[in-house]
């Protein structure tokens, strides 16, 4: 089978069946764009996790006068108790990485700094804050070590892990990205069904040609390759466009806007688009080949 002949037949086939080819291109594009968004959202969650888990701290709040924590029993932490906690933390390296003491006044100041644009800052009083040890860990997942050692210890009001707060957020983000992936799964199903319908229709409209090919002894590969190639080319074109759209989305939406608007958060970049590209293109090719193979087995008797 000569390549020029195959390419000529391929071009003729796509031209003859232009509207079907365009619909395969578009449906593949949309489904792959959605799938890409889902995958990128999942990578965004990972990026943020890496970023935040490095910064996440476990706070050991101490008791101050008028503390609300039940463990305090209304008594403030003594200097001895405080030193005891500090010593114990120092001995726990690793998993403890750093220990930093923040007084009630410092905490209040930091809060006012962070929320300076919010009415909260004016309503807050210093009494609402407590002295605390801010403990950063080598592995954010090991926070239970701190909890088990300090929860209920003398002078400790409460052990609070920021990771728990973040995890709620990440769970939400994960649900969003999986929903996008599931939705794109439906679209991929549409794309597959459309490919199958297109092939069936093409096989029907070209039955005279395939009959002749069969009669003069063309091999199965020769008869089927144009169908497979047409599907692969159309769906690769679609997913190529989808990758272009994703690239534009990340370039202008994320790098151009989001990461400038929200400076203290890590965002995915173009490298993430590049990382998912081979998977999407490879997956689409495999899908197109499998779909055409199955459809041809049913509708193109050889």
């Amino acid at each position, binding site marked *: 089978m*000569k390549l020029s*002949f195959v390419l000529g037949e391929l071009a003729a086939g796509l031209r003859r069946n232009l509207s079907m080819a365009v619909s395969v291109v578009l449906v593949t594009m949309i489904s792959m764009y959605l799938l890409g968004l889902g995958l990128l959202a999942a990578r965004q969650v990972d990026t943020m996790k890496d970023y935040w888990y490095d910064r996440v701290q476990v706070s050991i709040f101490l008791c101050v006068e008028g503390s609300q924590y039940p463990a305090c029993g209304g008594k403030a932490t003594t200097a001895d108790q405080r030193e005891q906690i500090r010593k114990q933390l120092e001995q726990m390296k690793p998993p403890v990485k750093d220990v930093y003491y923040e007084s009630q006044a410092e905490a209040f100041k930091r809060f006012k700094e962070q929320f300076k644009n919010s009415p909260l800052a004016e309503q807050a009083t210093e009494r609402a804050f407590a002295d605390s040890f801010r403990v950063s860990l080598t592995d954010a997942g090991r926070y239970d070590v701190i909890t088990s050692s300090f929860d209920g210890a003398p002078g400790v009001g409460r052990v609070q892990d920021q990771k728990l707060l973040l995890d709620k957020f990440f769970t939400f983000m994960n649900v969003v990205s999986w929903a996008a992936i599931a939705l794109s799964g439906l679209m991929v199903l549409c794309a597959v069904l459309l490919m199958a319908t297109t092939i069936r229709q093409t096989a029907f409209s070209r039955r*005279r040609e395939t009959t002749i090919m*069969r009669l*003069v*002894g063309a*091999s199965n590969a*020769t008869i089927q390759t144009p169908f497979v190639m047409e599907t692969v080319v159309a769906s690769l074109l679609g997913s190529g466009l989808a990758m272009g759209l994703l690239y534009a989305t990340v370039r202008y939406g994320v790098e151009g806007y989001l990461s400038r608007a929200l400076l203290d958060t890590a965002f995915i970049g173009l490298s993430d688009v590049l990382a998912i590209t081979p998977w999407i293109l490879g997956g689409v090719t495999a899908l197109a080949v499998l779909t055409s193979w199955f459809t041809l087995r049913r509708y193109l008797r*050889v």
Partner: protein
Amino acid sequence: MISFDTVTKTYAKGTRPALDAVTLEVERGEFVFVVGQSGSGKSTLLRLAIREERATSGQVHVSGRDLRTLPDRKVPHLRREIGTVFQDFRLLPAKTVFENVAFALQVIGKSRAVIRQTVPETLRIVGLDGKEKRLPHQLSGGEQQRVAIARAIVNKPTILLADEPTGNLDPDTSRGIVALLERINRSGTTVVMATHDAGIVDNFRKRVVRLAEGKVVSDVGGGDYGASVGSVVPDTGMPGSGMPSGSDTPTRTMKLPRLGRRAPDQEAPPPVSEGTDEAGRHTE
């Protein structure tokens, strides 16, 4: 070349078999007419020979291959040795005469050089030189059938199967087409032609195998169309049969329930001759 040994083909369970225990031998270089009414099994016979269908029982051998055991992937190679021609020509309407013939070579991977050499040669053989660039709809029916024949023989097959090749043509054109098949036969190609055109069969004095309801009811060398007393009902109203049917010569026939090997049908009389008495040759 082609041999059927008690071949039965049943398309759907419970229906009458399209072929019923047919035993038939076609030697290399023979020219055979297969005649019979519509539904008598002519087409099925040809379809079995190119493995379009598989026999329900019995053995089919074509050019040394046992079609019962031939694996699917080798079927294309079988078909490259067999040319096929049909009543409806089966040309590709968007391709020129040249392209239609070249298509048969392209799809089996022949090089452009081979195509450029073989296709004009073949078109000359079928009498279409000068019409390479025409599209099928610009040709007469007879010319279209010549294109189809060119396509069938362009790969130099050893066997040519023709299923009612003159079914859509007038008597004169039909004779021209069969004369062409005869010429191809003389160059060594085995030709099997299914037809119910009495005029043609009478004219060419070839071996005639008659099928009725899936059974071989007669098999005579140099026979004519009416040469088949064994047939249940004589065909009536054949399309394109402008000639008197040969039913006035019933004596030459014998009913042959089973046939052994036959000598190849060597030289046929020229198409115009009438009433050759060489008829009736057959062996048990």
